[in-house]
C-alpha cells in the first residue's frame, strides 16, 4: 500500500500543468519507483531537459530530436560520400593537406573514436544489456553497408602474410594463420545495432560538439546509467528516442560536472581537488577517529575518492543501486553537494573494519565496496547532513 501511495504521489506531481520541481525533488530524493518509466521521466525533468510546463513537452522533444538527427547527418559522415562532379583538382582526398579537408578531420576524429570504442566495449561488463541489439537502431547507419558504422573506422586491420609451400607437381599450399582477439562486444550484422554502438555514437557526437573538452575516460560510465534507464522505458513513445534524449540529458549533466573531467580546473573551487578536500574535511567533522587513522596511514582521498566523485559512484555499486543513488543525487537542491555526504557515509558505515585496518586492507575495502553495506549508506548520509554544523 505504501508503495502504491508513493506511486500516486509521483503521478500527482507529474500530472500538474506545471510540474513543481521543488516538490518533485523532495519526493525523488528518497528514490523513484522503478515502475512505468517514472525514473526516465523524472530524470528528464531533474536534469532540465524537459521544462516544468507540461504542454510544451512535445514541442521541446520534437525540436531536440530533430536537432539530434541533424547532428548525425552532419557529423557522422564518411568523406568522399558527397563528392559531386566538377573540377577534380578541388576534390578532397586522404593525403590532402588542406586544413579544411574532410579527410584530415576524419583521421583526427578517429583518434578520439579509438578511445571511445575501447571504453564503450568495457561498459557495465557485469550485465549483458549493452551487448544486446537495440529495437531502435539508427537506420541510415545500420543500412549503410557498414560505411557509417563508427567502430569500423577504428577496426584494426593488419596485413596478413602466409607461408606458401610448394609440393611437387605444382600443388601449392597456403598456410594462413589468422589470430584475432575474441570480442565480447560483437558488432551486429547489417540492419542491427547493439546498445554499446548507440552509446559510442552519442559520445562521439558529444566529443565533436564539445571540442574544448572532447572525450575523457569515465564519461562512458556517466552516460551508461542514463542510457540504460531511457532505453528500457516501458513507454514506447519515449523509448524509441532514447538515444537523442540521452544525448541531451548527458550534455546537461556534463555541464554541471565537467570540471571534474578537465585537468586544468583541478584546483579551482569546482574542480576535483576541491571536492576531495571537502570529503576529507567532512570526514574529520563526521568521524574524527577514522579521519585521524587515515591521516596516520597516509590514506589520501586521491586513492579512493577520486573515482567516487568523478564518476558519481557509478563504478562502486551494482547498476540498480547506482540508479537509486542517482535519484538522490539529481534531486539535490545544491547539486552535487550531497555527494560529499554520501561518500563520507560510505566510509563511516565501515568504521568497525576501517579503524582496525592497515593501509592495504583499508584501501582494498574502499576500492571494492562491500555490497552488504549499501542499504546503510543513504540513511547515514542524511544523518550526517542533518548533523552538519
Amino acid at each position: 500500500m505504501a508503495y502504491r501511495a508513493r506511486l500516486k504521489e509521483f503521478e500527482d506531481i507529474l500530472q500538474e500543468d506545471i510540474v513543481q520541481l521543488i516538490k518533485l525533488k523532495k519526493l525523488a530524493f528518497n528514490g523513484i519507483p522503478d515502475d512505468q518509466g517514472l525514473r526516465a521521466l523524472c530524470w528528464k525533468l531533474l536534469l532540465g531537459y524537459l521544462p516544468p510546463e507540461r504542454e510544451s513537452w512535445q514541442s521541446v522533444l520534437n525540436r531536440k530530436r530533430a536537432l539530434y538527427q541533424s547532428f548525425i547527418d552532419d557529423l557522422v559522415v564518411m568523406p568522399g560520400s558527397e563528392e559531386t562532379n566538377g573540377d577534380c583538382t578541388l576534390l578532397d582526398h586522404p593525403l590532402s593537406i588542406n586544413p579544411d579537408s574532410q579527410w584530415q578531420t576524419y583521421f583526427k576524429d578517429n583518434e578520439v573514436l579509438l578511445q571511445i570504442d575501447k571504453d564503450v566495449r568495457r561498459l557495465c561488463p557485469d550485465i549483458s544489456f549493452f551487448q544486446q541489439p537495440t529495437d531502435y537502431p539508427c537506420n541510415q547507419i545500420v543500412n549503410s553497408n557498414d560505411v557509417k558504422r563508427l567502430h569500423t573506422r577504428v577496426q584494426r586491420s593488419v596485413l596478413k602474410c602466409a607461408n606458401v609451400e610448394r609440393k611437387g607437381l605444382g600443388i601449392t599450399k597456403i598456410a594462413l594463420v589468422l589470430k584475432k582477439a575474441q570480442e565480447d562486444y560483437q558488432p551486429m550484422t547489417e540492419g542491427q545495432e547493439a546498445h554499446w554502438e548507440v552509446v559510442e555514437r552519442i559520445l562521439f557526437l558529444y566529443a565533436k560538439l564539445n571540442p574544448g573538452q572532447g572525450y575523457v575516460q569515465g564519461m562512458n560510465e556517466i552516460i551508461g546509467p542514463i542510457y540504460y534507464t531511457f532505453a528500457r522505458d516501458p513507454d514506447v513513445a519515449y523509448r524509441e528516442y532514447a538515444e537523442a534524449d540521452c544525448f541531451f540529458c548527458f550534455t546537461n549533466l556534463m555541464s554541471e560536472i565537467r570540471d571534474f573531467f578537465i585537468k586544468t580546473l583541478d584546483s579551482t573551487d569546482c574542480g576535483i581537488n576541491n571536492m576531495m578536500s571537502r570529503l576529507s574535511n567532512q570526514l574529520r567533522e563526521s568521524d574524527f577517529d577514522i579521519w585521524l587513522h587515515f591521516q596516520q596511514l597516509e590514506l589520501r582521498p586521491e586513492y579512493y575518492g577520486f573515482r567516487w566523485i568523478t564518476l558519481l559512484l557509478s563504478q562502486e555499486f551494482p547498476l540498480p543501486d547506482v540508479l537509486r543513488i542517482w535519484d538522490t543525487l539529481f534531486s539535490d537542491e545544491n547539486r552535487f553537494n550531497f555527494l560529499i555526504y554520501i561518500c563520507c557515509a560510505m566510509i563511516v558505515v565501515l568504521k568497525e573494519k576501517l579503524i582496525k585496518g592497515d593501509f592495504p586492507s583499508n584501501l582494498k575495502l574502499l576500492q571494492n565496496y562491500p555490497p552488504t553495506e549499501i542499504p546503510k549508506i543513504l540513511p547515514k548520509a542524511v544523518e550526517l547532513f542533518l548533523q552538519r554544523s
Partner: protein
Amino acid sequence: MCDLFKRELLFKVLVIGDFGVGKTSIIKRYAEGTFSTKYKITIGADFALKQIDWDSETRINIQLWDIAGHERFGYLTSVYYRYAVAAAIVFDLTRPDTFVAVSKWLNDLRDKVSLPHGKPLPVIILANKGDVAANKVPVQIEEFCKKNQIVSWYITSAKENRNIDSAMNRLILEALENQRNNNLYNSDSLMLAEEANSGTHNSSRLCCSR
C-alpha cells in the same frame, strides 16, 4: 646475521602505460591468477596486493598500483607514484602508438619519483598481448632499453599467462638489491662495515635461492 632477512618487506610497484594496453589484466593475472576480458576502465588508480615467500627468510608484500592511462589523470600521477620502488611500463603489441608512449611514461616517472638516495627506479617494459601479436615487437626496443637504463623487457600475455611471473620476479630482484644497498647506506659506520661483510654473503645466498 640471518636476522637481517627474517622479516617482511613491503614493495610498492607501479604499473603504467597507455589506456587499454592491459595493465589491469596483467595485475589480475599476477595477483589473483585470473584473466577476463571484462574489466571496467580504470579511473584514477586501482590497488592490488600480492604476497610472495621469496626465500625461507624473506616474505615480500607487493603493493601493485594500477595507474589509469588517460592523460586526464596525469597530474595525479605524482600522488600515486609516491614511495614506489619499481615500475613496469606496459604497451600493446597490436598498437604501435602505445610503444611510442612508453618514453612519455618513462619521463613522467623519472620526473616525479626516485629512490631515497636519488637513484632512478628500476623499470621493466612489458610488451603485452603477445598471444595475438608476438611477431610485432618494435625493432628499436633493445636500443631503447639500453639507452634508458631499462632493466629488461618481456613479451607478455596476461591471457595466456606468459612471462608475467618471470618479469615481475626480475623487477622484485632489483628492488631487493636496492633495498639491501639502501639499508647498508643507512646504518651507522660501525654497522656498515659489519653488514657489508654479511651483506655480500647474504646477497649471494639470495641469488642461489631463486
